[in-house]
């Protein structure tokens, strides 16, 4: 299934199915999941010696901690459509003072794994001071031993966001204020994705809608999924003409980014980057797969088109080489994978030293969406925030509004308004989520070349 279509289009209609058909359970009740774990139940009580053996040692900070103690941690799988490849994974942390914090650990196609990963940290976290976020972050990362992977990174991300939510509530400040912001009280510049622009009329309508809402940036996908590693004249020409048409249709006052989805080889991607230079795009995203920094560097050094990457990277460590080599113009780390608010802030600080801009990726749920807005308005090098939706909102936004009382990630006059209130600025109940019980993990889409071999996603 086309990912962009899925997010805003047909699959959303499925959400209108009666709740009774979706499941016989609620988010509060244990359900059977493939991993054998129970995402909603409490982990077994630990015995006294276990706390010592884990090295979780709040006693080391007697006299220096707050009166807050973590008393419980829960992970929720939330499927707003039955076939979603990204059921939201929300993390709730409870404290002895009644303050609770929410975070998001959603990772596409791996919901059960990440819920387990979150719960693996539960014994360690209980009893600790939730205010010591940097300390707890380090322990979760370093003591996980296997580091910088997306699963541990996403689990830490959800927990880190929930801890920041608690900290903001405890200190009665929005998170962006704790970070020294906001840079702009009006909100954060964002961009939507585009879909359904096959006709010139549709493109003209998109331009009119976008401009009337003050939107200054949009991102497009590839004209089709079937681009090969070494691609030939027909599809390369098609890609250039496609972008020329979009630039002509949207005009110069809307910035345009394109996601190459890592489909082409570094050199073929560079051919495209060079040929679209006259279009002055805002960036080309993931022109090749993200693991090989030298390959990405070959692309960026041979074309003036700005290069963006980073949504799959974890922690500052994952970004170090890209930054030190000055490979990319824009980093797109995701607050739900990179390690939460703490890590996104650090990546932005590191990037800023090398004059690299931030355009944080955000294609999951609304809690991570709110969290990223807090960071965005507290960093000097924000370029634009991704909003994984369309100029015309879909069903997803209605559900988010149902949960929070506001639509979380919608722009007003071209900006996402800053969240209001202490912490992350959301009030969420388990009851509100129970309407959308966990429907199990679904894989991301499978994409193959014409000969049946595996194509990049």
């Amino acid at each position, binding site marked *: 299934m086309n990912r962009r279509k899925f997010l805003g289009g047909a699959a959303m209609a499925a959400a209108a199915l009666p709740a009774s058909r979706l499941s016989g359970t609620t988010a509060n009740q244990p359900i059977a999941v493939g991993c054998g774990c129970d995402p909603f139940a409490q982990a077994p009580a630990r015995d006294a010696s276990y706390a010592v053996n884990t090295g979780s040692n709040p006693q*080391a*900070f007697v*006299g*220096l*901690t*707050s009166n807050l103690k973590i008393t419980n941690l829960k992970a929720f799988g939330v499927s707003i459509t039955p076939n979603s490849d990204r059921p939201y994974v929300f993390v709730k942390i409870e404290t002895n003072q009644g303050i609770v914090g929410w975070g998001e650990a959603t990772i596409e196609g791996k919901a059960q794994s990440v819920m387990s990963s979150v719960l693996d940290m539960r014994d360690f976290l209980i009893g600790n001071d939730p*205010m*010591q*976020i*940097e*300390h707890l*972050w*380090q322990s979760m990362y370093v003591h996980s031993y296997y580091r910088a992977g997306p699963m541990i990174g996403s689990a830490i991300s959800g927990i880190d966001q929930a801890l920041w939510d608690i*900290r903001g509530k405890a*200190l*009665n*400040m929005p998170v962006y*204020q*704790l*970070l*020294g*912001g*906001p*840079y702009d*009280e*009006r909100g954060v510049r964002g961009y939507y994705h585009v879909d359904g622009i096959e006709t010139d009329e549709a493109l003209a309508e998109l331009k009119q809608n976008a401009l009337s809402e003050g939107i200054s940036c949009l991102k497009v996908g590839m004209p089709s999924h079937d681009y090969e590693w070494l691609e030939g004249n027909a599809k390369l020409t098609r890609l250039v003409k496609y972008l020329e048409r979009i630039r002509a249709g949207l005009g110069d006052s809307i910035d345009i980014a394109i996601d190459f989805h890592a489909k082409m080889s570094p050199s073929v991607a560079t051919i495209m980057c060079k040929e679209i230079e006259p279009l002055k795009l805002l960036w080309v995203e993931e022109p090749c797969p993200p693991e090989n920094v030298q390959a990405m560097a070959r692309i960026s050094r041979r074309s003036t088109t700005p290069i963006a990457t980073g949504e799959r990277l974890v922690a*500052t*460590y994952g*970004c*170090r080489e890209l*930054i*030190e080599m000055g490979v990319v113009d824009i980093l797109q780390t995701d607050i739900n994978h990179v390690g939460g608010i*703490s890590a996104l802030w*650090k990546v932005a*600080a*590191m990037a*800023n*030293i*090398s004059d690299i801009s931030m355009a944080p990726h955000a294609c999951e749920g609304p809690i991570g969406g709110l969290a990223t807005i807090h960071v965005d308005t*507290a*960093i*000097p090098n924000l370029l634009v925030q991704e909003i994984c939706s369309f100029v015309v909102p879909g069903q997803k936004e209605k559900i988010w509004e149902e949960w929070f009382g506001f639509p979380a990630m919608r722009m007003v006059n071209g900006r996402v*308004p*800053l969240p*209001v*209130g202490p912490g992350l600025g959301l009030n969420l109940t388990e009851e509100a989520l129970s309407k959308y019980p966990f429907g199990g993990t679904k894989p991301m889409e499978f994409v193959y070349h014409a000969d049946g071999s595996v194509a990049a996603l």
Partner: protein
Amino acid sequence: MAQARQQADAAAGGPHAIRGVRAFQVAATQQNSAYVVLQIRTASGLTGYGECRALTPAELKSTADAITGKAATSYEVLDPLVPPAVRGALNVALLDIMGKATNTPVYRILGGPTRNKARAITRLAGNNDAELVADLKRQFALSHRAFLLPIPPPAAYNQGSEFVRTAVTRFEAMRAAQPTADIAIQCSSELSPGDAAALATSLEKLHPLWLNEPCAVSNIATLHKISDETVVPLGFGRDIADGGIYQQLLREGVIDLLCLDVHTHGITGIRKLAALAETYYVDVALWHRGGPFANAAALHAAASIPNFYIARLVDPAANSIRDGYFSLSAAPGLGVEVDERALEKGAIA
């Protein structure tokens, strides 16, 4: 509507709008260089303090003009609006206010404490080995456990034999006098890279903590002379304000310890550079030449970052040291008691 109210509040600077910006010159003593205390007052009645090395009346005025009426909580946003000389001080003063506004120590605003005490280092004083040994014993009795040992430069570059022999003798004298003391080598940026490499290789097996500021950081390629020829850890940073230089030093693998001046970087600048250093498995040392506000800022920074190593504070006798470590304050803000009348006589108009 809450959103509109929030925006209106912010436009007016919010409850903690900056209402007063003053600065006070503090004279040099035997312990510290001259420095300037920055004082920020808010509409909410809170007062925050920071320190910088120097501040002209013109810089003070441009600072006041830039930030008066703005939210004191916007420490990140206000930073680029003021002259570079005052940025570190402003950051510390605003975080002091953040802490007082929330009744919590600064490190807790920043996700700490990441440790429950902060390792201390002190500089040894003396004109010869005997005086240095006496000072080592005196300061060890005051609970210091780590020491910066000054090594005078050779009379001319690259004439190393006498210089190296004298340094090794000096180091061995300290080790013999106090075998459990840890010793770093203080070079004050006065060596050539070749001299520094010769010195470091000769000291390598005596295990100094690190070689501090062996030479000026100019052409970074020449620093490879030291880092390639010796495995003694290298510390740089006393004259480096620009984050890009640290990025180069780290990328080139010629630095093992970022020696960050609290006056220059403030707490937030330290946190940013520490985040960068973390990815190179490099630690951070903190130091300054000023007074109690910079001392406190150093300890709050130390308790906010994971990769703090050691701090050299001014007049450490005034701070509580136990077995080589400073204790951390649990008081709101920086936790420094201020004698406002004593400051007043140095007021900068």
